[in-house]
């Protein structure tokens, strides 16, 4: 069932370093969309995993039923996912904005509806796969790594860099950042909170879709991935501090390496347990996460 992580026994330290890095960047890719939406609009988007899976199926559909070019299919399905995300905000979440629990329940209900609907529609089994971008592999320090995993690393770095540039040098990006820092002040300066939230949701959904497009060729598209990606995203965001990007990237590395090390030395079943334990331990010891300092006062008694 686990298809993203290389779940075999590693025998060398170099293996752990290289696959740990790849795994961490994969985790960061899964989590960036979630942390972006939460950071900007304080919306815990529990439909994140569902958007991830649905992008995979849309790309698959474009390639195999419409016979589109792979690259075109990816671009189109990312656009569609972005629209779905915007629609989720515009038609559903906008009505429960500010009520954290209702937001969680509503977005989780959307996720359940999408994922279980897909499962009911027969989208399960081993038949749904996406082709890798480039065949073949290389050896790094004597460790065989296939090109797709290198592409994951490359795209991860590009995405982080793009997000940094976008939020520092683009008008909309700056508005988003203003929203994230202080919603009221931003609104006083004429930034529309709902419009920014729509943009944030669309962007977050595109990021979820991008993660799917990059990571899914490593395995099958399965519905369960939706729940798994959601848990990984939450784990990364909570360990890093909800809404903190630097924290999210660092946390992705912490959890990513922790996972690979447990897989290497203990057992492969613990892949998921590590993420879940990370969430619980962080929330117990330091609920605001490694970098979410400002929320410590308001959320903790």
């Amino acid at each position: 069932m686990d298809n993203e992580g290389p779940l075999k026994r590693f025998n060398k330290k170099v293996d752990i370093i290289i696959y740990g890095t790849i795994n961490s960047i994969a985790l960061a890719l899964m989590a960036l969309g979630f942390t972006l939406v939460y950071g900007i609009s304080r919306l815990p988007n529990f439909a994140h995993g569902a958007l991830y899976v649905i992008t995979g199926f849309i790309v698959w559909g474009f390639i195999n039923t419409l016979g589109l070019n792979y690259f075109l299919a990816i671009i189109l399905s990312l656009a569609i996912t972005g629209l779905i995300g915007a629609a989720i905000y515009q038609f559903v979440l906008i009505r429960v904005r500010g009520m954290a629990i209702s937001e969680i329940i509503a977005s989780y209900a959307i996720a359940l509806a999408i994922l279980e609907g897909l499962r009911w529609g027969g989208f399960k089994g081993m038949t749904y796969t996406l082709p890798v971008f480039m065949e073949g592999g290389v050896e790094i320090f004597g460790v065989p790594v296939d090109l797709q995993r290198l592409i994951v690393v490359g795209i991860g770095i590009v995405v982080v860099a793009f997000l940094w540039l976008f939020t520092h040098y683009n008008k909309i990006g700056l508005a988003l950042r203003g929203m994230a820092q202080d919603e009221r002040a931003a609104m006083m300066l004429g930034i529309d909170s709902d419009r920014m939230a729509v943009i944030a949701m669309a962007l977050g959904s595109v990021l979820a879709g991008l993660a799917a497009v990059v990571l899914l060729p490593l395995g099958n598209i399965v519905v369960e991935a939706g729940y798994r990606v959601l848990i990984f995203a939450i784990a990364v965001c909570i360990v890093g501090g909800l809404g903190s990007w630097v924290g999210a990237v660092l946390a992705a590395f912490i959890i990513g390496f922790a996972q690979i090390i447990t897989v290497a030395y203990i057992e492969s079943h613990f892949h998921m347990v590590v993420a879940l334990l990370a969430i619980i331990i962080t929330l117990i010891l330091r609920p605001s996460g490694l970098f979410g300092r400002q929320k410590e006062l308001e959320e903790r008694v």
Partner: protein
Amino acid sequence: MATEERRRERLDRGIKVRTEGIYAISTWQEMAYLLVPRLVLILGILMLPLVIPSLYWQRVISIVCIYALLSLGFDFLAHFVGLVSLGGAFFIGVGGYLAAILSTSLGLPPALTIPIATLVGGAICTFLLLPCLPLRGIYFAIVTLMYPLVLAKIIEALDILGGTDGIAGVASFQSRWVEQYFIIVMVIISLFGLRRLVNEDVGLVFRGVKDNDQAVRASGISITLYKSIAVYIASALGCLGGAYLVHLYMWAGISLFALDFSILPIAATVIGGGGTLVGPLVGSFILVPISELLRAFGTLRIVFYALILMAFIVFGSEGIMVYAQRKYHQFERWVKV
């Protein structure tokens, strides 16, 4: 030109005001006003297995009661203590596994395993949740959502407690009627017990914790203590349901940690009306049979109640029982402004 503006005014019925203090009751009418709704509920639930002859639907009533216990716990925690727990499956799983172990390895009868699993299971759940009690809002919700997943994964990974095969050969009840009425009576007792509890002094503190915990703290009352009492009550209810479920199916497995046990109680509470304690019961009696009817559609029923839940949340519905109680206790009239 002055436009005539009207607004709807809601007033308590005189009979409600008169019957609020028990000492003021003097007529049959007033007694009936208080008793009829309660008797309709109690007798209705008690009669249900007699009216419904088919074994299958009697089994469904038992399942409804398990969900009713869970939803009661959820409603109590969410609307009276302010802790939103998304981990009903955690309580069911702990209670269920405990009862299964007691039954298979010690050979205890259900009459012993269920009380032990309820009391000890509640204590175990409270102990495990103790570190998360300082958390509030979305953080508590996330952490409780994770607990059942972690336990299920750990059981799977370590291959303990029967691993993925589960524990088979759990003792069943002596007779069908014991099986049926035990859980129905437990639901009624829990419902009225909780209703009484939230109006006692303890209930006042619980509500204080929900509304303004700093004020409670400033009064020299330990928040953590009261939160853990509340969590103990709610988790004991869930464990009771879990222990019963295990004896009903004579089997315990990872499916005790299934998503249904976490999601359906929330949906039932939202639909039935949160904060009324009766609402979750009514919600379960609506949702569970529907989801049984939809069993043939497989996972489509999860889609179905996810959509219902979303609709109720998004349109800010107050829930069936809140509406019904308002209509029962109050009348409305249009007044000029």
